[in-house]
């Protein structure tokens, strides 16, 4: 497939506005602002079938249409550049290598929703990305793609980069808003939804970096072109896949939505890392989504195909595990992450995540009790669906799927009081 999102990244000085402009950059913004109504832009994005690349896969055009049509208050667009889901590193590539594509997408989105400002909330650890972005924003202002009278029109909109302080939870949409407001990064109970009352209580829409980077080409080449890429009309467009784990060539790969998982692992990724260690399991959408057994890996990487297997495309972080992987240890590592990152606001997640981690540590230490496996599953069931934000689910799903799909291995760990996986590395 022709590269869309990554077409510029290997060019020299790919970050500079001149290189971006030379490749036809900002034509989408110019077209939107000078020849389309905001409503036309929303319609185009709806028609393209674009769904959010941040994790939930929510239809982007529909989300944009929730913003009030009559403006009585300032509107804001937030670009979620907090990318912290384990196994996910695609937004970083876009920001560091081709920041203007994302900026153009931000400004088109802002025009569609008549936003007064766009805030790019960037992960605190992305020091280099912040520098690149700061420079790109300055260039965009200079060329009137941001600020006053954008593209010579009477529409104005500010563009601000805000660096986070290093909490995973601040990537959750409402926690990002409280953090941006200068408060502790706590998710908010919904309703109200962001389009009614978001950041500073104003109508707000939040989108992922990659989602917004898709927008310029939808405007320039048309919704039908975009919708023509992918599995079907519900799973469209070009997509970045983050491949990691036991493969020959980990990295970010661009391919159409719906790329077969096996093709990603064996063709693009060059196959398993060790010829004698076959595929054992794969997490297809970042650490929070349920794991797939090797037998389940004949699946296309799109929202609906993965949902049919009761997992998800999530943030498209594909983590490949070979036969040497100890599933207890892998799950312990994941559960440690969520226990560490739980904001601590709501009871089931705050208390449950730490509890699950401590039980897993006990099993890993060879001190697991017979009842521990059922207890783990039960704690996860008591968290799922009962929390303020989806971090609770994100912590529960791996536990539920690991202990169910690899129950024998957990059982052996408890029975033998040690790891029985051949070649597994344990600290």
């Amino acid at each position, binding site marked *: 497939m022709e590269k869309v999102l990554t077409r510029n990244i290997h060019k020299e000085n790919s970050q500079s506005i001149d290189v971006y402009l030379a490749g036809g950059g900002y034509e989408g913004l110019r077209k939107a602002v000078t020849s389309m109504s905001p409503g036309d832009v929303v319609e185009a994005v709806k028609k393209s079938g674009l769904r959010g690349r941040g994790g939930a896969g929510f239809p982007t055009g529909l989300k944009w249409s929730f913003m009030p049509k009559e403006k009585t208050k300032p509107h804001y667009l937030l670009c979620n550049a907090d990318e912290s889901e384990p196994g996910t590193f695609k937004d970083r590539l876009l920001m560091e290598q081709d920041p203007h594509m994302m900026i153009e997408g931000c400004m088109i989105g802002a025009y569609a929703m008549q936003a007064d400002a766009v805030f790019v909330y960037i992960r605190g650890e992305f020091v280099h990305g912040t520098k690149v972005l700061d420079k790109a924003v300055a260039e965009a202002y200079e060329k009137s793609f941001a600020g006053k009278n954008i593209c010579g029109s009477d529409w104005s909109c500010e563009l601000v980069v805000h660096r986070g302080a290093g*909490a995973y*939870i601040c990537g959750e949409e409402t926690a990002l808003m409280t953090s941006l407001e200068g408060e*502790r990064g706590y998710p908010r*109970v919904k309703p109200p939804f962001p389009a009614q009352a978001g950041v500073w209580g104003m109508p707000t829409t939040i989108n992922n970096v990659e989602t917004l980077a898709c927008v310029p080409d939808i405007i320039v080449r048309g919704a039908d072109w975009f919708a023509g890429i992918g599995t079907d009309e519900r799973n469209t467009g070009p997509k970045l896949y983050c491949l990691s784990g036991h493969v020959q060539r980990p990295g970010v790969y661009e391919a159409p939505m719906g790329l077969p998982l096996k093709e990603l692992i064996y063709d693009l990724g060059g196959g398993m890392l060790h010829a004698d260690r076959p595929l054992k399991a794969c997490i297809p959408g970042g650490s929070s989504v349920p794991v797939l057994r090797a037998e389940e890996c004949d699946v296309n990487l799109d929202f609906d195909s993965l949902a049919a297997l009761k997992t998800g495309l999530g943030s498209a972080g594909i983590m490949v595990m070979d036969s040497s992987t100890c599933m207890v240890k892998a799950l312990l590592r994941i559960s440690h992450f969520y*226990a*560490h*990152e*739980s*904001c*601590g*606001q*709501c*009871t*089931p997640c*705050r*208390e*449950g*995540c*730490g*509890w699950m981690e*401590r*039980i897993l540590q*006990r099993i890993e230490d060879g001190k697991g009790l017979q*009842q521990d496996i059922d*207890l783990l599953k039960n704690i996860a069931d*008591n968290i799922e*669906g*009962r*929390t*303020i934000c989806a971090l609770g689910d994100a912590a529960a799903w791996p536990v539920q799927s690991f202990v169910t799909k690899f129950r024998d291995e957990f059982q052996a760990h408890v029975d033998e009081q040690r790891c029985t996986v051949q070649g597994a590395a344990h600290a």
Partner: protein
Amino acid sequence: MPRITIDGVEMEVPAGTTVLQAALSRGREVPHYCYHPGLSIAGNCRMCLVEVEKAPKLMIACQTQVADGMVVHTQNEKVKQAQAAVMEFLLINHPLDCPICDQAGECRLQEYAVEHGTGVSRHDVGKVIQSKAIDIGKHIMLDQERCIQCSRCIRFCNEVTGTGELDFFQRGDRTKIGLYPGKRLDNPYSGNTVDICPVGALTLKEFRFATRVWYLKNTPTVCAGCSRGCNVMVAVGKKQELMTSPGQFDDGIKRIVPRVNEQVNGHWICDEGRLSYIGLEAAGRLPHAQDADDHELDWDEAVRRAGKGIREAASAGRLGVIATPRATNETLHALKSLIDGVGGAATGVQSIHRGEDDNLLIRADKGANSAGAAAILGATGADDVLRSAGEGALDTLVVLGDLLDPADTIDLGDVATRVKQLIYIGPFADAASKAAHLRLPVSAWAEEDGTMVNVDGRVQLVRRCHRPRGEGRPGWRVMLDLFPGAGVEAPDWSSWEDVYTALSGGTDTFRGTTAESIGLLGLSTAEPAPAGA
């Protein structure tokens, strides 16, 4: 109005009502920790999960608004299972030191654990350890381990006082409640955080380890600290050795907590009012009627002498009266009737002003019944009376001393030496009492029934919470006893209600109201007294 069904009971409730409010309004208990009617909705404890038909997940009742046709289940198996799960989560890192916790007996964690928990712990992997007994404010101690992170105290300091001393620090199950660096929980309303804390994480220094809550007898009354007239509950300790004889509650006042009245104080009281009992309990009391030489006088003799002095001075036009603005309407009406009976007196109401009005509850006018006193005695200020007395223009000066704090009884200077007879009627052995020629004890605040009018013109009941100290009698009774000696026919009053009936028949502010109609939340009088009266 939306029609909804909760546990099979159909009800109509106003749009915008939450499921929790709707359930509570019909007497259905949905367990909840973080929800507090005086604060914003946090939705963090997850204790109030209920099933709403057609919703994919359980919903939190505290935040879910009713919608027409909604069918809610608050007690089915799914809900009970969720409640038990949340209880289990709340308890796994809780120290369970109930035997030494002040909250025991009124702890929502204890209560819900019994009602909604499983009774057994599946948690055996070590609790998160946090700090205990941290001094965080003039009146407040914190036990971090006991905190269930409901954020009520934080929201109180952010939303009610706007002082923002508290927040959570760290994340996950390491989350700690604590003070911002350099801050102390010293706002003038800090004690409310203790009341709203559902567990024993925040305790009041003045109440810590003082007693067990099941040894307390509570009486609804009104604070006498200032003209706001906050509604409170006064708890009197029951002497533990008297446990077996119910009704013997008299180990003094142990604490004062707010009583909800949306028209007056909402859910809150100030720390000064909350702790006003301490000075009262500590004050030196006048044990019995006395003459200037501290000799005990027989009551009949004392009131005869006092009545005589009043009559003689009045007939010469040389009687002066100064009353505390913390006296009840009944006492003041009895006093006024006596004055009218003897033909009048130079009358003044003492003014007790300190500090400034704030924008929450506290009033600079510390006269809890300033408005009632102004309406009944028609007088403000005591300066003219004091001046006349100082100039030697009065023979008898009657001073009705303060009923809450001896330090608030009017400073008479050397006026006692300029009058023939200074009659002190008050509960305390204070400076005015010492200077007096005749001293008649009365019961203090919380020792007698009656009414007061607050700054907004609301008549409210003040109640006897415990037995008066010494020989203190209700003020109106003392006044009544003075009538014969003063040569005035005594009215036929045998209760404070009788006095109130007489008052409402003769004083505009109270016209049309009756003692029975006041009720626990008070009654707005037809013509609200002017602010600061």
